[in-house]
C-alpha cells in the first residue's frame, strides 16, 4: 500500500539527485583550485524560484567568463591570468592563476532555457530556475 506521502517523498528524492550532481560539479571545481584559497569558494543557494551556484572569480569580469547551455548541458569556462606589475620585485605570491572548465548535465528539474549568469565583485553566479512543477504553489482551501 502506498503511503499518502509517496508523491512528496519522490519529489524530495529528485531534489537529492540534483544536489548530488551539483556536489559532483563542486568537487571537480574545487580540485582545480588545488590548495589555493582559504575557506569555501563554491556555494549553492536555493529559494522558491531557483538554485544559484556561486563561484569566486576575483579579478574576472563577465567578459572573462563563458557560460553556455546547449542540449541541457551547462558549461562554465574561464581563465585567470596574473601578471606581475612591471618594475616591482615580489616578496610574497599567494594568489594563483587557474583555468576553470566544467561541464555538466542540467537535471530536468532545471529550466535550461532560463539559466542566467552574472559576475559581480569578483563572484560568478549562475542562476538555475526551477521547472514550474517544483515551484511552491498556493493551494486554495475551500470551506464546505
Amino acid at each position, binding site marked *: 500500500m502506498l503511503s499518502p506521502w509517496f508523491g512528496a517523498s519522490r519529489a524530495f528524492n529528485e531534489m537529492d539527485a540534483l*544536489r548530488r550532481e*551539483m*556536489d559532483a560539479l*563542486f568537487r571537480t571545481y574545487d580540485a582545480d583550485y588545488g590548495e*589555493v*584559497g*582559504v*575557506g*569555501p*569558494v*563554491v*556555494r*549553492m*543557494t*536555493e*529559494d522558491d524560484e531557483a*538554485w*544559484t551556484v*556561486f563561484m*569566486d*572569480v*576575483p*579579478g*574576472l*569580469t563577465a567578459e572573462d567568463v563563458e557560460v553556455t547551455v546547449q542540449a541541457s548541458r551547462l558549461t562554465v569556462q574561464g581563465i585567470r591570468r*596574473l601578471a*606581475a*606589475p612591471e*618594475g*616591482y*620585485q*615580489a*616578496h*610574497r*605570491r*599567494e*594568489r*594563483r592563476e587557474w583555468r576553470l572548465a566544467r561541464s555538466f548535465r542540467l537535471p530536468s528539474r532545471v529550466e535550461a532555457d532560463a539559466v542566467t549568469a552574472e*559576475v559581480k*565583485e*569578483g*563572484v560568478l553566479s549562475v542562476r538555475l530556475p526551477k521547472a514550474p512543477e517544483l515551484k511552491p504553489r498556493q493551494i486554495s482551501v475551500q470551506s464546505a
Partner: protein
Amino acid sequence: MSTDKTHSAMAPAVDIYESEDEYLILSDLPGADPASLSLDLDHGQLTLAATRLALGGEVVHGSEPSSFHRVFRLPDSIDAEAVSARLDKGVLEVHLPKREALKPRRIPVHTG
C-alpha cells in the same frame, strides 16, 4: 613586510610587491562588500577587514560567506599619510609609498 593570519575569519590570498617607490599589496576579496572594507594603520600594522555580501536564499552547499581579515606588519619606511587603496572586481590594491628620505637616490659624481 610580514603578515599574520587569524583563524576567526578567512585570510585572503595576497601578493606583496616592492618597487623603488612603494610597496604594493594585491589581495583577492571576492564578494566583499565595498562599504564594509576597512584598512587601519596603527603602530606599523596594517589591518585589512571586510565582510562578504550575503548570498540570499538558503545555502544548500558550502557555507554562508563570512568575512576577510588579515594583518600586515609594515616596514618603518612607509609614508603612512600617503597610503591609498582601491577595490575593483573583488581584488584589493593597496599602494604604500616609501618615505622620501628612504627612496634610493642617485648621487651625481663630478669629474675633474
